[in-house]
């Protein structure tokens, strides 16, 4: 190995646990959720409310088990919410209240 250090869980190059896993080459349709999250990210980026680097940081901050359980755009959505709180655009309390609203 290149080092004795254990890589971060998103730093997947050569990761032993995936070396024997076949790649699922079948097409998968995107959902409405996927397309909306992708569009939300583009709008926030164009408005300079969140950079791609902040998006990446937020994705990497997701704990390992969750990181692998969540879908690609679910990771994005969690990172976007994380960054909106970090930047003070929304507060955690506001988001909690809105998410809990039936």
């Amino acid at each position, binding site marked *: 190995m290149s080092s004795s250090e254990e890589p971060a869980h998103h730093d997947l*190059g050569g990761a032993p646990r995936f070396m024997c896993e076949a790649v699922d080459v079948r097409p998968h349709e995107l959902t409405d959720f996927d397309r909306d999250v992708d*569009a939300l990210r583009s709008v926030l*980026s164009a408005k300079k409310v969140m950079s791609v680097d902040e998006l990446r940081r937020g994705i990497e901050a997701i704990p390992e088990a969750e990181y692998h359980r969540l879908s690609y755009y679910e990771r994005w959505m969690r990172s976007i919410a994380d960054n909106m709180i970090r930047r003070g655009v929304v507060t955690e309390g506001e*988001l909690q209240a809105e998410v809990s609203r039936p």
Partner: protein
Amino acid sequence: MNVLEADGAALLKAITKLLSAKGVLTEAEIAQQRSAVDNAPPGQGARMVARAWTDADYRAQLLSDGSSAAEAMNIPMRGMPPLGVLENTDEVHHLVVCTLCSCYPKAILGYPPYWYKSAAYRARAVRDPRGLLAEFGTILPPQVKLRVVDSTADYRWMVLPRRPDGTQDWSIERLAAIVRPGDMVGVTIPTTE
């Protein structure tokens, strides 16, 4: 419970509502952006490749400044990361991956395919690339050097595949029709079959 652990759909709804209420964005802007991506003409990258196969000046432009070559085909690149293009030859084959996330030349190729974002693809491309290619039905001759491009930073990378033999008389439209997104990532090779 940490609010970030809420269901993705609930977070999307809540964030969209809060950001609209605060005047950060409107739901119409999101819908407009989504529709722009969904309605982008398919095959934009394929047309760039076909033109590069038939026009030496365009090929040179594509390889030296991918973004300007995309703009020359009316693909909007403003605000997009710069596009780098790597040429496959008799001696070198390129394969693009992003081991750290899933960087992909979306402005040219559209949404990234499922496999491109998968942990197995990201892990294996830089360590077992020939085994990985075999799962896409691609077998490279051993004398061809494989250069795996880990898209780690500010560029987005696409591959200029080799023009298949026996296509000398083909029109640019017919050439563009055989170029698939995977050919421009390097997992497959254009064929005339």
